[in-house]
């Protein structure tokens, strides 16, 4: 093998080696940090959301979610992910279709009439955006042993076109928490 040929292979090899080294260093040495009793983890309740049927333009649907951080430490970031199991124009039309917003209350939400009220401090942790997709929650500050009292608001915009009538969408939502590295 000539020197030139050898030189042409060296950069990719170096890249491989560097990547492997970085990845290995970043990964924790032991998996039990995920499943151990004290490992920080997220629990969302309830396990399912009640269906919202017969929506009309301008309607808003509210569902409560208790997002608990079990274990020690805190999350560097928490994401809401909404996956579409059965798609329709409600999910595909990002302008007139369903939109989601997430608010947190420093205390438990209380049922008041056809809505939920907060006796504490309200924060918008996810501003209104199209339903499907993955978004980082802001100002959540979730630490181990604490619970975020969330209100999921799904809205069909008032300007929704009549083409969105008679549509059904099935969604699955989940939260992903990225643990902050231990100091």
């Amino acid at each position, binding site marked *: 093998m000539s020197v030139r*040929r050898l030189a*042409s*292979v060296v950069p*990719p*090899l170096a890249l*491989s080696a560097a*990547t*492997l080294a*970085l*990845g290995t260093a*970043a*990964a*924790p040495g032991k*998996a039990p*940090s*995920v499943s151990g009793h004290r490992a*920080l*983890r*997220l*629990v*969302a309740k*309830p*396990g*399912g*959301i*009640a*269906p*919202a*049927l*017969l*929506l*009309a333009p301008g309607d808003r*649907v509210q569902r409560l979610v208790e*997002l608990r951080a079990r274990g020690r430490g805190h999350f560097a970031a928490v994401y809401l992910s909404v996956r579409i*199991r059965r798609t329709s124009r*409600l999910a595909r039309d990002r302008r007139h279709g*369903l939109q989601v917003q997430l608010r947190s209350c420093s205390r438990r939400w209380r049922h008041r009439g056809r809505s939920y009220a907060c006796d504490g401090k309200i924060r918008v942790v996810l501003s209104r955006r199209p339903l499907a997709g993955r978004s980082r929650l802001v100002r959540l500050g979730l630490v181990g042993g604490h619970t975020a009292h969330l209100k999921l608001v*799904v809205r*069909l915009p008032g300007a*929704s*076109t*009549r*083409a*969105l*009538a*008679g*549509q*059904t*969408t*099935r*969604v*699955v*939502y*989940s*939260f*992903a*928490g*990225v*643990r902050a*590295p231990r100091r």
Partner: protein
Amino acid sequence: MRSGHRAPDAGLRRPVRWGVAVGAALAMFVTTSAALAAFTSLATGGGGSLSTQRIFAGTRSAWPSDVRDASGGGAETNSSDVLSYADALTVTTKSWSSGFGTTRFDDFDFSGGRPAGVAVTSATFNFTFAPSRTNDDACFYIEVRRASTNALLGTHGSSGSPSACSAGTTVSATVSVSAEVTSTDIANDLRIRVYANNSTNRPLKIDLASVTLTTPWFATSLLEKRWDDEANAAAAVVLWPFVATEGTAYTTVGNLATAFSATRYVRFTPNQVVPTGASISSAQTQFAYKSATAGDTTCWYFEVYNGATLIGTHGSSTTPVSCNATSSYVTNTVSLPEVNSVTAANNLVLKVYLRNSGLRKASVELVQVDLTYRLD
């Protein structure tokens, strides 16, 4: 200067480079994924269904094509739109040519009023016709167009292969237009253009030109509101009255009396379709009228029927809904709270009683029923 000569193993160098690069990317993916998985906690909140009403709340209008006129106090005259019903009553077109021509056609525009945005399962153009003489032959084919823009949506049949022909007898032809009329948005703005011929260059007699629609929520017929007979390549537009306040009016068949009478009326049956299960939140009628002769005063009141059952009266013989002494049309809008069910809406009949100070006729420009409903 670069030589065109290549080393013997030059072809091997590129695959090796690619292999190394792909390997590096794979290693990066695997290790990074493992790292992220170890640092991420996932909580599934679960799933759920979200659905919308089948038909959003909105106001839909209907107009009568079925009109029975007893204004003279005698038996009812059938003043219904001849083109809207297969009842052996026919209109006669102008004369066609023995050969098809691109400038020889009849346009039929249909009244809409169906809830917008609903998918159409099937749409059929119904055309019942015959040559004006039994020993003539006639054929037709059609184009589907948007009424508002005249944009061509599709063609069915051709001059060489017509949609249907008649050898002198009445033919009830149907042409599927489902490929073009895919939603009520198109159905509410529909024009069918009929190209026809006649073996002896004579007219056709048309009994029916309508469109039947099927949707997941309702079935209905679209009835014509504008007929442009260009059989001889010259426009001749006939507007069905009652549909708009554009000056085209219906004049009562008989002369009215100076006093209201139970036997002097005009019955209007709007071409309404409200889906089964719909919730009606409001109903109203708009009625525009005047005296046929200037200087006369015409007054009116009306009864509302669910089929043959009287369900409401608005005004009376002593207190009419209104009187009009001017020579301009006056439009009255009257709420119909009694029309609060699908059955009442779909069997709605307005029986309008009229009187005229000059013992003459009245002109009616608009009869419109507006229903606001939704279907959950």
